[in-house]
């Protein structure tokens, strides 16, 4: 187990190294740099003053130097500063990260808490009304653009209740209710797609598992249908959900941007999108790497969890 973890972490490191190189090169391929991007209604381009500024920002250094500076900083715990605002990234992330993370986790929780029972019900009552309801939810959920849904939700709550979620991050430790109130709508919006996905997946695997020989064995023992479903089928059906959930956490983390834009939340996605529009290399690179790290880490956790739940999987 320890060996397995060590090797996986090493692989993770390699992957992230690859990501870092790719993203580093990609952002530098983009037309325009941070100075061009910050021109507003004035004329951009090259001038003496700008060139001096470029030099000061380190943009004039050879690429390998820039890359190693970045990596060296990361390794020594220095995330660097935003090229645009000069604000240390550590500061920016300290508010953006918890907010986005919480939205995502809340969203995932909603997706699992609703998606799994719905999927199970749909499978067990396959072909009956509840199945069609579940499948309809599953279908509609994956076909709604999230930004559209978010806009709709905002307009509805603001018109109907005269209320909108606060866009400031309220620490869950200080004001749990306020925190929940602020983040529940965004979380709901991002959860819809995953909820539908989980529902469909649980339904499909459940149908499959219900046809397995060991479920027949359980029935042959004389176990009640409920026991068969919960004790014998569900546990096996949930195995792939672990993998997909971890995967989705990574995907959601990277795609909350749209929701954050609509709700005006200063989260990670917003930071990233702004960073890209601003050509703030430091922000893009570091946030992307962070997202990639979370993604691979989640997958690693999923693999370990899978092995813990499924005794057949050996971690070597």
């Amino acid at each position, binding site marked *: 187990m320890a060996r397995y973890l060590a090797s996986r972490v090493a*692989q993770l490191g*390699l*992957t*992230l190294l*690859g*990501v870092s190189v*790719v*993203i580093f090169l*990609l*952002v530098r*391929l*983009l*037309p325009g740099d941070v100075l061009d991007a910050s021109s507003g209604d004035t004329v951009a381009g090259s001038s003496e003053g700008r060139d001096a500024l470029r030099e000061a920002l380190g943009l004039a250094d050879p690429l390998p130097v820039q890359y190693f500076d970045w990596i060296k900083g990361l390794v020594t715990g220095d995330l660097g500063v935003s090229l645009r605002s000069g604000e240390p990234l550590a500061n920016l992330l300290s508010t953006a990260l918890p907010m986005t993370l919480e939205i995502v986790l809340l969203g995932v929780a909603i997706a699992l808490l609703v998606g799994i029972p719905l999927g199970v019900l749909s499978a067990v009552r396959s072909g009956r009304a509840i199945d069609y309801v579940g499948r309809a939810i599953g*279908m*509609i959920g*994956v*076909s*709604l*653009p*999230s*930004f*559209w849904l978010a*806009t*709709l939700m905002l*307009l509805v709550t603001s*018109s109907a209740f005269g209320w909108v979620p606060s866009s400031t991050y309220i620490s869950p430790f200080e004001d749990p209710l306020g925190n929940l109130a602020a983040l529940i709508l965004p979380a709901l919006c991002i959860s819809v797609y995953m909820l539908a996905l989980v529902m*469909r997946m649980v339904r*499909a695997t459940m*149908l*499959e598992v219900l*046809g397995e020989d060991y479920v027949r064995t359980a029935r042959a023992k004389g176990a009640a249908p409920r026991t068969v479903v919960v004790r014998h089928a569900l546990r096996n059906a949930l195995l*792939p959900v672990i*993998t997909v959930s971890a995967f989705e956490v*990574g*995907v959601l*983390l*990277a*795609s909350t*941007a*749209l929701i954050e*834009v609509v709700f005006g939340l200063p989260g990670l*996605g917003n930071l*990233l*999108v702004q960073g*890209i529009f601003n050509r703030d290399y430091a922000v*893009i690179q570091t946030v*992307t790497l962070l*997202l*990639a790290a979370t*993604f*691979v880490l989640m997958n690693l956790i999923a693999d370990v969890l899978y092995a813990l739940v499924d005794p057949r999987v050996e971690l070597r």
Partner: protein
Amino acid sequence: MSAPATVATAAEVEVGATGASARRRVRLSPMLRTPIAIAGLSIVLLTVFVAVAGPWIWTTDPYAADAARLQPPSWAHPMGTDELGRDTLARVIYGARVSLEVGLSAVGVAALLGSLIGLVAAFYGRWVDTALMRFVDVLFALPALVLAIVVAGLLGPSRTNAMLAIGIAYAPAFARVVRSAALSVMTQPYIEAARALGTSSATTIRRHLLPNVMAPLVVMASTYLGTAILAEASLSFLGLGTQPPQPSWGGMLSSARTYMLVSPWVAIFPGLAIMVVVLGVNLLGDALRDGLDPKLRGRR
């Protein structure tokens, strides 16, 4: 997830031989005869029909801004007009073409790239596999949105580039699925038999491996088609997708958000269009998956 090992035994649309003659007819295989599959197929076909023939049936120019702005639905404009006074129906019809094109091309790029990587990795194994899969890991770990934005930024926002971006972003998923399907095909004795007969690697990949991973590939492609249409909408929302004046549903939707309260229909129709198509594609995908998964097809 279980690898769809024996999926290969059924084709989505079988070419059935009628007797000994070379005459063939394409028939709907039984799995496509379920109500869900028929619904999905009809929606998809209808969309294709609208995309292809729509402009001849509803001849209003989707670009002409010559009517009053933000009109509610009427006989002249069954879906109303948009904020510039263009006919929404004409734009929805034209948007079908764009959305389908984006969806199909993006998925095409992803499937092509992904299956190439997946097949080669699975076939050659060892370091080829390791190297390719590490590469795929890197690509996978890069947030799709970032990738898309970067491609759009790099090549300028446009429909083509959105398709390319989405395609590249989805390629790793295809690579993995194809690889795992191909790996299970690789354990099939007929692969070893081909080797025993001295068949070359390229031929083996082309004749034995590829046709037998088609089924999971088709299923995956059908599901991702919907996702790609949504992704294009999201890119358009950020101003990076299909560019005006071309009407893509995503673009229409994102510009219509401003008018959701003033004239909701501007946002409703393209939204509905997206939903219906994604729904159709998903229904079809589900039917294909159910049909191609021998376990769900009733046990022997």
